[in-house]
């Protein structure tokens, strides 16, 4: 149960907001849920709703609205390549395509071993350091900038070993 396992983290999150505005903590709690279960499960939504004393449907709509929450299982690591305009001007589309080819998937797909989902995403505020991607996994989100297909593949190999 999240409430016990992450008690201190949940308490320090709730402490940021007025006592009668617990709902503000929903986004942070969903990150905690996601790192525990890999994605936001139905049970997790119920748990978060119980902690915050709101309806599970309210939690579900938050999960649906924001792009960094997942309500289904995907790769262990989301490899999110920015293919937005400024990065694309510096070769990001080709980078994404070549990276996918190297791992034998199409953009948006998960590798057979279930390790990686490679996605094309919108601007990540790193446009001067394209090609770039972020890795989203249980540990959070990390940026990798000024990448080549080789350097990206190396990052992924390292992640895959964990």
């Amino acid at each position: 149960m999240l409430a016990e396992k992450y008690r201190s983290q949940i308490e320090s999150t709730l402490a940021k907001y007025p006592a009668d505005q617990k709902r503000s903590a929903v986004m942070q709690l969903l990150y905690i849920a996601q790192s525990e279960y890999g994605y936001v499960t139905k049970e997790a939504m119920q748990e978060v709703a119980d902690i915050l004393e709101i309806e599970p449907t309210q939690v579900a709509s938050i999960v649906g609205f924001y792009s960094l929450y997942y309500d289904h299982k995907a790769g262990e690591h989301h490899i999110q390549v920015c293919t937005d305009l400024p990065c694309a001007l510096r070769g990001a589309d080709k980078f994404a395509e070549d990276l996918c080819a190297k791992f034998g998937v199409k953009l948006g797909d998960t590798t057979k071993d279930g390790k990686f989902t490679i996605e094309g995403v919108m601007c990540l505020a790193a446009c001067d350091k394209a090609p770039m991607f972020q890795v989203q996994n249980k540990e959070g989100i990390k940026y990798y900038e000024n990448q080549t297909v080789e350097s990206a593949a190396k990052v992924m190999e390292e992640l895959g070993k964990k």
Partner: protein
Amino acid sequence: MEHIVLRHRDIPDLHKLDVYIKNGGFEAFKKVVTTMKPEEVIKVVQDSGLRGRGGAGFPTGTKWSFLTKNRPTYYVVCNSDESEPGTFKDREIMEKNPFQLLEGIMIAAYAAKANVAYNYLRGEFWQVAKFQDECIAELRAQGFLGKNLFGTNYSLDVFTHLGAGAYICGEESALLESLEGKLGQPRLKPPFPADKGLYEMPTVVNNTETLTNVPMIITKGAEWYKSIGVPNSAGTKVMCVSGHVNKPGNYEFAFGLTLRQLIYDHCGGVPSGKKVKAVMLSGASSVVLSGSDDILDMALDYDSVAKKGSALGSASIIVMDETVDMSWVLLKTCRFFKHESCGKCTPCREGTYWMLNIMERVGKNQVTKADIDLLNNVASQIQGKCLCPLGEFAVTPMLSGLKIFRADFDSHATDAKAAAKPAPAKAAPKKEAVAG
């Protein structure tokens, strides 16, 4: 020139609290808390001529003075959502000069009579937020945050709040909804945040760069700040330059530098000596401008840019060389706005869907000239009918792009007999095209 916002470029290790303090850090905050009234702080910021760096350029001190009087609680919220394609300045500030931003937030909080301030960071800034939390913890430990600061009865706490991937949360009222734990959808205005903001209380929302200017304004004075830049555009601006330049990155200059100076003297010019075909000055939502001499010699300040029919906004300057197919550029911006429309109002939700639908067919050479006219028509229909500016943002590049670079769209039309050579097979920058 010395930096004001990117001061870490002049002072090594400025991200460390002891270094920041050694360089005058938190003296401005101490000064306001111990010797000034909130109204006096607001007056200094007003006199400095500081304008919002988040996009709209609204005078900062004036915004603070609009707070509804005599309410029980006030809030300050820093907008670090930074999601406009082409914008990456707030991230550098938070990574490299975090304490100056925090001091700015703290001074704003004192001026607004707020005892709690939040910094809302886009969800992708996970690591940045962690670092901010560490900085805030240090400030608490050193007595710069907490109860009865400097022996006065003023108390203040600052917290970070992480978003989760939604461009619309950069719009201030959507940001406040998101901070309240709701869907990030814009509110109807009025009421404005200065009257009913976070938890229905009067709230100041300012951009990261805006607030990072504030400590130096308090330390060196309004006159000093005003003497930098040009009339109506006081101080410096961090410009995010991306796309086809040799040295993309953040550049901080006094307002008034020309676009040509920025691109050629500072960013190393365009790779392979190519010509500038087009520029967008405030990210994906800006007017598309040509790379004509007239545009290149334009001074980068609020008024000069407005005179050319564009806006400086957050100064996210995307440079595109002569090989770029502008219909491909507009396909990219369309995809962005379709993805980011929050869906609350029909013109934006449906309009961005249809614009993208036609643009994808442009990319596949599956359109006629009539379809491109229709595109123009759809874009015009959205204009002026949306609940928040995002809908307008989607239309602005489309209409201006179609106006100047219609030929780039027509070359994909099956009935465009004018096109002498076959259109390229897919929507990617043309490799060997000539200046358009």
